[in-house]
């Protein structure tokens, strides 16, 4: 998947993904964790950082953080919280409580559908800030006439997942985030909604001559709120850096802002302007050291993760994990696996699930694996043609019946015996002498016309392959 950048350069990407946890309440207080409500209604002395208030850690958020750690194969550790100090109006205390050099999850990995593993440096817990809206200017604090701050988001629990700089293209970055999103949703920790800011991605991008081992100077890109803009921003930034280096210039380490409308990144602040966060251990919280019991409870409650499910299905179906990624994403792997266990042909089961079943999610929910296996088997053994099989399946998904035999019978989908089919083929040949001559003269394209006519006469009951075979017999015989 890794596609090198043009002109002998390769791009190196590390991603920082902020994931809002789906807890009922905020990280350090009892306020509701909800999106899209009237501004400054889900607030209290603690999340407003009022003088004298103190944080108390939300147990559910730790549970989710550990699930994420498990899913990313991390070492789950005793951790502590630090204060990250900087002044900003949407941060009520003018420091953010975050984990720093002792995070709860460290040293894991994420496997992409194509099998490549991306290292996960850490997945740590922290609180979200409020949300500022800068009015009367370009939407940034510097040129605003005034700013509005909504503290509903202040104190919402986050897990920040930091990847190793091991991602080699914009496409791979999208695949990483897409896979990570699936994992986060599967753990129950996140709703995965990038458009609501539940998942926010920053990208560290640098380039280096292909094959070099030293890293180039990186830029951190912020403000990408969809997979599409992530890809576009990385592509833009890669090109920008290549142009700089090829024209003898240099890349300056800085934070850059992605502008979706303009399709370009622009400088936010340089390394020299970067904050000194003055991290130190948060004295209002005690170390977080989940005991063995809590950790094994979390492990026991873990649902299967997308990579496990892809592997299980691919093994059962005799194919590659990448080939079944979509089915797993659509949550249809369970159905197919069960059908295969009932003896269904894996190839046909995958095919029907990926097309007919996936097209009707509501129907899929009521489709039993046993019935699905039966219709697949009917097709595999030639009792139904592919066309008939699709129709029977559609009827089952529509809730008509759970019994494929009954539906087939109702539709009159009996397999035509060869003599009956031969009769129909002969009729069609007789009715179309000119095309038949062309067929005899060696034009294979007209076979489609005959097959179509036969299908029409048999209302789709004929097997296309059988018709072709008869046509060939008539021509050659």
């Amino acid at each position, binding site marked *: 998947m890794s596609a090198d950048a043009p002109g002998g350069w390769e791009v190196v990407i590390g991603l920082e993904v902020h994931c809002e946890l789906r807890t009922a309440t905020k990280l350090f207080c009892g306020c509701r964790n909800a999106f899209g409500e009237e501004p400054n209604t889900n607030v209290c002395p603690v999340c407003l950082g009022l*003088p*004298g208030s103190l944080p108390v850690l939300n147990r559910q958020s730790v549970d989710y953080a550990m699930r994420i750690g498990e899913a990313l194969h991390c070492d789950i550790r005793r951790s502590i919280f630090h204060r990250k100090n900087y*002044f900003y*109006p949407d941060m009520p205390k003018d*420091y953010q409580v975050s984990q720093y050099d002792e995070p709860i999850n460290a040293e894991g990995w994420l496997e992409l559908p194509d099998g490549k593993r991306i290292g996960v440096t850490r997945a740590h817990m922290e609180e979200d800030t409020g949300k500022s809206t800068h009015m009367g200017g370009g939407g940034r604090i*510097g040129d605003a006439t005034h700013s509005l701050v909504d503290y509903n988001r202040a104190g919402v629990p986050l897990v920040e997942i930091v990847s190793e700089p091991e991602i080699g293209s914009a496409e791979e970055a999208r695949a990483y985030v897409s896979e990570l999103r699936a994992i986060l949703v599967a753990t129950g920790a996140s709703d995965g909604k990038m458009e609501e800011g539940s998942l926010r991605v920053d990208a560290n991008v640098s380039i280096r001559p292909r094959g070099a081992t030293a890293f180039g100077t990186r830029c951190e890109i912020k403000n990408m709120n969809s997979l599409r803009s992530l890809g576009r921003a990385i592509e833009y930034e890669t090109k920008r850096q290549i142009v700089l280096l090829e024209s003898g210039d240099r890349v300056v380490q800085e934070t850059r802002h992605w502008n979706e409308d303009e399709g370009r990144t622009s400088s936010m602040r340089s390394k020299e302007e970067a904050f000194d966060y*003055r991290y*130190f251990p948060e004295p209002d919280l005690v170390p977080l050291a989940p005991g063995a019991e809590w950790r094994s409870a979390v492990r026991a409650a873990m649902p299967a993760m997308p990579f496990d499910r892809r592997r299980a299905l691919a093994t059962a179906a005799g194919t590659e994990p990448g080939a079944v990624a979509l089915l797993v994403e659509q949550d249809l792997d369970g159905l197919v696996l069960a059908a295969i266990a009932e003896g269904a042909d894996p190839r046909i089961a995958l095919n029907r699930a990926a097309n007919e079943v996936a097209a009707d999610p509501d129907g899929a929910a009521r489709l039993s694996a046993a019935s699905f296996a039966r219709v697949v088997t009917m097709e595999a053994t030639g009792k139904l043609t592919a066309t008939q099989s699709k129709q029977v399946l559609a009827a089952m998904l529509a809730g008509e019946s759970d019994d494929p035999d009954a539906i087939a019978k109702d539709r009159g989908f009996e397999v035509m015996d060869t003599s009956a089919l031969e009769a129909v083929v002969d009729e069609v040949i007789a009715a179309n002498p000119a095309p038949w001559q062309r067929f005899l003269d060696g034009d294979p394209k007209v076979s489609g016309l005959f097959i179509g006519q036969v299908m029409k006469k048999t209302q789709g009951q004929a097997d296309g392959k059988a018709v072709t075979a008869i046509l060939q017999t008539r021509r050659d015989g």
Partner: protein
Amino acid sequence: MRTAVDIAEAVRTGARSAVDVIDEHLAEVDRREPEIHAFNLVLADEARRAAADLDRRVAAGESVGRLAGVPLALKDNLCTRGLPTTCSSRILDGWCPPYDATVVERLRAAGAVFVGKTNLDEFAMGSSTENSAFGPTRNPLDITRVPGGSSGGSAAAVAAGFAPLALGSDTGGSIRQPAAFCGVVGVKPTYGAVSRYGLIAFASSLDQIGPFSATVADSALLLEVIAGHDPLDSTSIQSPAPSLTEAVEVGVEGLRIGIIRELMDGIDADVAARVREAADVLAAAGAKVEEVSVAATIYGLSAYYLIAPAEASSNLSRYDGVRYGLRVDAPDITTMYEQTRAAGFGPEVKRRIMLGTYALSAGYYDAYYGQAQRVRTLITRDFDSAYEHFDALLSPTAPTTAFAFGAKTENPLAMYLSDVCTIPSNLAGHPAMSVPFGTGDDGLPVGVQVLAPALGETVMFRVAGALEAAATAATVMA
């Protein structure tokens, strides 16, 4: 002067009305507050209403709590719902907390009657109450002298008879040192024994709320009421409040008590003499008293003046003019921050914010904050070794008696030395209290500090009770 124990008993049984009690104390406030300035805010009307309500409940036969009708002064860094809470700083100008501190809730439930909010060094940073934005508090025993600090207002309120009880906060000695200077009892409990929820933070890992009172028994009672686990404070200890009131009269027979050698150095001779007399008294009462070395305590002051300012620099960031308190308007946000904080904070607060910001800066963290934390560990370890052989320790509370106004304002380091004996307990998280024991050559009170291991309050109150009994006997004899 009546004690809290007596007042609560009298009010509970209907022998005395709470209104009568509060009127008597408010009369004293009227008489002397203009020269003392113990309070930032006197809650006369609220107190009378609360007292009247208590009297009605007593008359109705309702149960009214262990501090029924006892007037109590709150340091003005404890949040009180709907009432200004200033930390004696301009930066909190106009701010009223929308909630009560946990201790305030517990006291209200116990029937205490709040007389007012007491003056302090701004954000509890100081040792004389001279750093208040609203002017200093005077020592009721000699109004040319400071009352100590930072809880000078609370100490003075008790010493002046404005209230038998007061709460202060102690980060490096801010309860014990003013208690010593004003001749009252002051207690810093074990870190985590009393909830900090609603105490406006100075240095979170050191701050602890504690009682002031005229007698040891009153402090024991007050501490019993305010201590105990609070789910709103993550550093709150998960054990029930200790039983202390009985400990006061148990005596010290058989206790092993050590005088901390390092904390007898650089102490005024008259103060040191009182500490040795206190040791003799305890020995006479059956304790085994010896000198003991707690070597690392000599580094306490240095470590403290890195850790406390570092935490303060972060705790005080939120006073930025954006959400509450003072705002000096300016064309852009950075200038607004700068001008608000320049106008809102006094010089000592600014000094400590700068010290702390520097100590946490990239490249300096290990040399300053990191090193100070290692010293802190060392101090705790040295205390632990001492407590293998001793039940409690003894030292002066402060190196001097109450000093004159202005004596140390020009030299911050001289002022900081005032806390040299009290700081080690904060760094270790251990309990310690100051008990009045005689006077210095200037006739002003001397405080003896009793130190105990973490959660050792019971033994600490036994020693304090014995010292008080001996000091009272000596006064009667004199």
